[in-house]
């Protein structure tokens, strides 16, 4: 395919599932029907994504907190209460 602007040769690339034609000469980019919408959607998803949670502050040997690893559902357990209050 030829560049509609400068008649240079256009090369096809694929970026994240979107086909892009780029001119080797003027670096212009040609998008097929629907590809601009796809890019716009990807951009808004990127901005809407919550920031990744900060790494859990703790020692390298700490329990992975949260999920099914956490044991802190045992608030009433006798040995846990005993441990909170004794040497």
């Amino acid at each position, binding site marked *: 395919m030829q560049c509609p602007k400068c008649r240079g040769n256009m090369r096809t690339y694929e970026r994240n599932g979107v086909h892009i034609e780029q001119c080797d000469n003027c670096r212009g980019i040609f998008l097929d029907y629907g590809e601009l919408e796809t890019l716009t959607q990807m951009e808004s998803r990127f901005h809407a994504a919550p920031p990744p949670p900060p790494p*859990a*502050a*703790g*020692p*390298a*040997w*700490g*329990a*992975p*907190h*949260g999920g099914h*690893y*956490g*044991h*802190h559902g*045992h*608030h009433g*357990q006798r*040995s*846990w*209460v005993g*441990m*909170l*209050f*004794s*040497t």
Partner: protein
Amino acid sequence: MGLEEELAGIAGAYGGTGAPVVHPTRTDVVVVRRGEVVVKAHSARDHAEALRPRLRAAASAALTGVMLPPLTPEVLQVAGRAVTVWPAGRPVAQDELDDAPWEEGARLLAALHAVPLTGLPGLPAAGGPARAARAVRRMTADGPVERLVRRAFDGLPQELFHGPAPEPFGAVGEAGPLPALLTHGDWHLGQLVRRGRWLLIDVDDLGVGDPAWDLARPAAWYAAGLLDPAVWERFLGAYLASGGPALGRGDDPWRRLDVPARALTVQLAAVAVVNAAGESRELDEVEHSLIEACNRIVRV
């Protein structure tokens, strides 16, 4: 006359009235309360010479509002045991853990650590490291769990357990000079009582040491997955917001906490192993999470 009767008599002599009540506590300690007076016979291991400056420190003006002051700054002797006399306070309610005063405890520790040693009697080393070493020594069996706990202990800097008392101004460790400050030595929720305000109790391990050890038990609970991270954040946040000096400058509290929290994890695991063996039962889920933490410690 038995020890408990003698303690009840001392409580009466200091104004305690009513029937004596023996408080459940460690097996090597006897605590008798009569009304507003509590009398404590210390462990036979605790020598009066080491206890004396600790008690005088708790009685000193420098610790007003931080530690419960004794009714007398003298260590009494009953049947070869050191005995101290205290006003009664209201402990933390064990069935109302949601309201436990974590922040108040942290603020009191920060205030304790900030008390200048110069205004106090010459104190022995804080008792935290010795306590951890004793807990490990009390494990007599040699099964895989005991061996794991010992391995986690052996991975700690052993000079903590054999070295001389820390000099004020500190030795140079991996994380820079360790502070040598006034340290409680055995802090947990049972070491808080309320008399108008919350105060620290128990002078048995009070001394000069690395104050990070006072934060290490909650840190160990958190690292074992037992303490709710939100509670840990509240505790640590209140300590830092009160200007607590234990964790040094910088943004990683675990730089200073790592070694003492590993030591307390080992201590708690050893105590759990000994308790379970004494009661001829398996470790429960909570106790097992401490063994799992020891397992992660030896693998890091």
